């Protein structure tokens, strides 16, 4: 079984990995510096998908479907996680207008 073609030429795996790394770092920086909870969630999704991209890239390079299956699995978990995270956020927004995640520090010792 051959990997999928992109315009007839095969792109080197390292490009995919580079893209994944850039996405992951962007996600991480976003989580670190943004304060809006919603944006932070989006950044986390970005990091997850960067990881998925690596899985798929390696899967193509190694001609092995396991990586793709794992990516599917990971997306499922991400969806579930997004449901929980968004539900919590929605609940928080119902009580107050939390624009800054640092306002949510009641559990601090």
């Amino acid at each position: 079984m051959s990997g999928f073609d992109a315009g007839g030429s095969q792109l080197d795996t390292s490009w995919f990995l580079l893209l994944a790394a850039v996405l992951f770092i962007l996600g991480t920086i976003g989580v670190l510096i943004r304060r809006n909870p919603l944006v932070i969630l989006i950044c986390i999704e970005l990091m997850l998908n960067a990881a998925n991209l690596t899985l798929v890239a390696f899967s193509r390079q190694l001609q092995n479907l396991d990586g793709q299956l794992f990516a599917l699995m990971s997306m499922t978990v991400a969806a579930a996680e997004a449901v929980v995270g968004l539900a919590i956020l929605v609940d928080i927004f119902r009580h107050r207008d939390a624009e800054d995640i640092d306002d949510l520090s009641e559990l601090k010792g």
Partner: protein
Amino acid sequence: MTNSQVALLILLFPAAGAILLAGRGWRLPRIVTRIVGPGVVWASFLATLYLFANSVSGDFTYWTWIKSGSFDVPFNLLVDNLSIFMCLVITGVGGLIVTYAVGYMDKEDGPSYARFFTYMDVFVFSMLLLVLAGNFIFLIIGWALVGLSSYFLIGFWYHRRSAVLAARKAFVMNVVGDVGMILGAFALFVTYHSATYAGVFSQLQPRICGHGGPCPQATDTNSLELAAFLLLVGAVAKSAQLPLHTWLPDAMEGPTPVSALIHAATMVTAGVYLVGRMHPIYDLAVYAHGAVAIIGAVTALFAATIAIVQTDIKRVLAYSTMSQIGYMFLAVGIGAYTAGFFHLLSHAFFKALLFMAAGNVIHAMNDEQDMRKYGGLFRQLPRTSWSFLIGSLSLVGVIPFVGFFSKEQILGAAFSKPDASLALAVWAFGFITALVTGFYTGRMWWMSFAGKPSPDRPVEHPHEAPQVMLVPVVILAVLATIGGFIQTRALGFGPHLVDDFLKSAVGAQAWEGGASEVIATFVTMLLAVVLFLAAYRIYIQHAWKPWTAVVPWAQRVLERKYYFDELYDAVFVRTMDGLARVGLRYVEEPVIEGILTGTGELAEAGAHNLGLTQTGYFRNYVLVFVAGAVVVTLLILARVSS
């Protein structure tokens, strides 16, 4: 049944009674307590009589209690004429007193009643163990147990603060003596490697060789003196001699039968028994032996003088007990063992009689013990008064009562001991004590029974105690009257049954008295009687000025009991309090509390510092997380590339 089993039975009867009453006594009907309580003591008495009648003697070993290398403690009972003699006194006089208690304690409710007889039986068992023990370990066990039962019985009315304090004082004083005893037994064990009497005594080296000179091979003098002095500490504490005497007067807080049995007739004479039992040691340890005589003589006079000013009838008797035991110490201290034990027997008769008669008076007076509030009881309580008079005359030492023969035999032995200035000195103490005894006994009897009734008397028309309390008193009164004729040595002729009986156990007195002894005897008696009558002139007729008016400071000193309690308070109690305060201030608070609170504070401070990392800022956590992930990644990379 063999003789050894009978000897064991003497112990088992009271033990069984105590166990039965302790376990079930409060549930059983009162009649059971009434029968079992004194019954087991009488059963022991019968067993002792059996041994006495068959002249049993022997060292019965029942089983090995501890065996560890060369250390071997058998459970053995030493039955000889001395222990049989003591058992007869304990169970005979004890039986009478416990029977008397059946009536005296009748006011108590069921459980208390059973508790009292449990303690009494425990006491009788302990005392019998003490005198029958054939080795030092069981001697110490019995010794400590009698102290314990004495503690129980002094504090019997535990809701009275004074009783509890007195019990505690007695216990502490007795433990001081127990420690001395235990150390003394250690000292003997270290030297002779044996815990039994037989094993120790058989190794003692004679101090006098054939021609009368000291033996050069006697190498154990110092350890013997040490052991004898340490054992003497135990004897002094138990027998309430100077300087460990302060507990006995306070012990009168206990019920009167307890005072009669424990604090007059038996337990307090254990010190005399100890010196008699250890006579092979004391015969060789001359300094310790001399100390016994000196302590006895000084205590005899000391206690007799305090008795002059006491107003509580039981306290007069308590000081008189101390004084009479001083006589016994004096006797065994100069080597007149048989005379000392004869006085022990006679004292058990007349002092138990005095205490029980006093108990009848107290009973009739609604528990009032102050003699100044009695007066004129002679007509109203005739039988008690006569018994008390017999006891008093015996205490003073009037012929033909038993106290005359025993006390005068001691004084005679001291007076006529050849080449002994110490004996003559203690005789002088004993002589003066006899006169003081005449005076305070007279004061006690006249104040209580003669004259007009005191206006403060709690009961206008008292009546005599019930039969169960009168009969033992009358029996003892008869014994105190005729008992002296078993040994009339003080007169220089007649029978000497006690001496003959005890000769085999403690040795015969080494010297005989002369005619001067008999003259001294009668002079002593006459002067004592004169003082007995003088008390009537002073306290009833008020014909003579009381001596206290002449020397008021002496009255004060005597009322404060020579300031012994104050001295001990200042020296021991306050010192201990001070030490405790210093310890609190410089050890407890800075060191111990410092360590404990320091641990807590350390944990708290640590928690606070750790808490600082919990900023509540989401990005801080993420940063730490990311940094951790980076570090782990770098580590893995380094691992892979190397």
